[in-house]
């Protein structure tokens, strides 16, 4: 925690210290909105890039290629240098009408009344359960996020020879993470008949010595304490069993929109993202949302940062600030937001 003041009002509260939250905070700062606070529920700020130990991060923001943890550290350094308040270990538990936030901290519960709130809570992968995957529930079933956090933050290995589910960009990132940690995936599978990436990226599984099977479905996960094997069925009905000690479910990102869902903000039923207008404003005009919370499909860190910057500028304008494009720490993307 970098601040333990019990101040109960602020101009803008930003929930989440990942790339979108940081981009927004810096944009607000440049636009002269100085009473900004970033609320981070984790003990360490920086968001998901903290545990993506691979490049490339930071090209747009810092004009160099960084690995995720250095990129996250740079972001937080920029926040600190700008003198923006950043409160870690602060969990927002409820979004009240008009920007009134209920928080829990180890020092006790508190409320913050913010004139505007930016939701920048990011995205996460769909876990096994919500995919309705058949089989038992032994130890060793996890998402890429958990794998990378274990390896890059804790130096721990959850399995040695997992079966990897998914062929999105993150799935190949997971293969790199495995390679780095000495983990040897037995096979990479997808229910879809096509991968979710370019052919060039898709080729990399060969380089990594991991066979890929498309159009196959898991029909059982076996193992008493830890995963022992996975049985799959292909499009022709043929059944194969792979010995493995884990199952890694990658991708199928869903917005971390629980606060919005449990609050009274409208969600887009198709994506589960908070519904926002062209300025990034939610159904309650005190709330804005940015970054991967509103991106479907998910985007890379630099794009989330830019989305945060745009939301920050929109909030500044909304608050009556005089905002010029040059106030923006990086040039806003001219393409239309989708």
């Amino acid at each position, binding site marked *: 925690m970098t601040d333990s003041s019990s101040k109960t009002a602020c101009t803008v509260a930003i929930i989440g210290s990942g790339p979108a939250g940081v981009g927004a905070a810096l944009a607000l700062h440049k636009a002269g909105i100085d009473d900004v606070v970033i609320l981070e*529920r984790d*003990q360490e700020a920086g968001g998901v890039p903290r*545990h993506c130990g691979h490049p490339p991060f930071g090209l747009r923001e810092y004009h160099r290629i960084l690995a995720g943890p250095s990129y996250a550290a740079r972001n937080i350094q920029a926040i600190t240098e700008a003198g923006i308040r950043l409160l870690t*270990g602060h*969990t927002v*538990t409820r979004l009240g009408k008009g920007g009134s936030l209920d928080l*829990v901290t*180890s*020092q*006790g*519960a508190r409320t913050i009344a913010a004139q505007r709130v930016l939701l920048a809570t990011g995205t*996460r*992968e769909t*876990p*096994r*359960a*919500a995919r*309705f*995957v*058949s*089989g*038992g*529930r032994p*130890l060793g079933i*996890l*998402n890429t*996020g*958990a794998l990378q*956090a*274990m*390896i890059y*933050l*804790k*130096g*721990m*290995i*959850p*399995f*040695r020879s997992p079966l990897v589910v998914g062929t999105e960009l993150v799935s190949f990132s997971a293969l790199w993470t495995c390679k780095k*940690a*000495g983990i040897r995936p037995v096979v990479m599978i997808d229910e879809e008949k096509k991968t979710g990436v370019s052919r060039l990226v898709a080729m990399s599984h060969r380089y990594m010595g991991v066979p890929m099977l498309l159009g196959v*479905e898991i029909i*059982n*996960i076996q193992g*008493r*304490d*830890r995963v022992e094997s996975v049985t799959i069925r292909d499009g022709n009905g043929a059944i194969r069993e792979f010995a493995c*000690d884990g199952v890694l479910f990658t991708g199928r990102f*869903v917005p*971390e929109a*629980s606060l919005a*869902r*449990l609050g009274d903000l409208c*969600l887009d*039923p198709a994506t*589960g993202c908070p519904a926002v207008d062209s300025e990034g404003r939610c159904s309650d005009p005190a709330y804005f949302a940015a970054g991967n919370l509103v991106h479907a499909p998910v985007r890379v860190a630099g794009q989330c940062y830019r989305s945060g910057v745009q939301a920050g500028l929109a909030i500044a304008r909304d608050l009556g600030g005089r905002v010029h494009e040059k106030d923006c720490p990086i040039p806003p993307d001219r393409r239309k937001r989708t």
Partner: protein
Amino acid sequence: MQIISERDVAIVGGGVVGCAVARRLTLEGASTVLLEKATDILDGASKGNSAILHTGFDAPPGTLEWQCVQAGHREYLEIHESLGLPVLRTGAMVAAWSKEEEERLAEVLAKGRSNGVDDLRLLGRDQILEMEPHLSPSVRAAIHIPREYVIDPWSAPLAYLLQSLENGGEVLCDAEVTAGEFDGSHWLLQTGRGTVRCRYVINCAGLYGDLVDKAVLGDADFTILPRKGQFVVFDKAAASLINSIILPVPSRRTKGIVLFPTIFGNMMVGPTAEDQESRDDASVERATLDMLAEKGKAMLPDLKNIPVTATYAGIRPATEASPYRIRNEPDRHWITLGGIRSTGLTAALGLAWHAHALLREQGASFTPLENPVVPRVPNLAEHLPRDFSRPGFGEIVCHCEMVTSREITAALTGKLPARSLAALKRRTRVTMGRCQGFYCSARLAELTRAKFATPLGVGEIND
């Protein structure tokens, strides 16, 4: 042959029945040891049930099950506050969705009343929708059972056993009972941990009850026919959609598929009833989960916008016949409480009294404790203050379920420390929320390093 424990009574099996029996016999003055074959209690049938505190309105009239459910319901409400156990006073509705079902409601009502549940009443569609405005208007009628409640299925048995332990009882995990000899006054039980000497044995081994009888007595008078039930758990956003437990009009075989709020603030649909050979294969199947989710949405249309949090299956110890299978062997100082299925969570407290009565008939005599210690278990219920609402909790480790590092540390220590992730989940809810460990697995692996029999990490990067 080394005797590792010498007690008045050995209780075989750390499910809800074994835990309740350990509590009752300890309170009645017996020295007890509970023998559990797994690394933690609640590893069999008791790890996956519907968590409903039943009134017994639909129990077979006049049976031991009916008596024990009613006694259990009563005692739970008497003791829950002192033990720190929650009750969500939901009430239930037996809802009819077709004309045939509607016609059978009169039977349900009559049976309930003859079972002594006198506060049942018939509701028409308008009354139902007034109480449950999100329920599908295709509902036709229902019987309202005001005193069917939702409880915490894991904290309750944990509290029962802790009360036994706090008052001198003992528990041995990893202690599967494989054989035994009776010399006319004492048993020598062979377990995975060593030999246990005791005067009486209560077999509460649930899914393995028949196997324990066979291994020790040489025969069993019932056979466990495992029956799997799959469940789908919806996100906490669904909890505001419904107040009551929505029960189907019962068939002979099973209570059927239920839609109900959980004490943890989720909404659940299940269970199925699938006979299988395996006593421990609690796997889920996609087609069944799809079917359950569809059933849920048919009853509660707004569920269609609610994400699924979890899926799981439980296995209930059915037998060839529906009644509880009680075996009383006075000559051998042995009692088997077998075939306790879905009503077991409620009935366990009543069964514990029954076991005590049978022991007395067998000649056992104990002096009840005068001022027993009453331990309190941590609250995990969503509607009551959780640990995070008290300052000084350290950090929130599991953000979805708001589990603190203080709670985790407490669960990893004490009289019955969690020695597996499953055990820690039951004691704290960690990783049981919507992200299923995406955010907290790494921190959890670190916090539980060297604590679990099967660790979360299989190695370190630099080893």
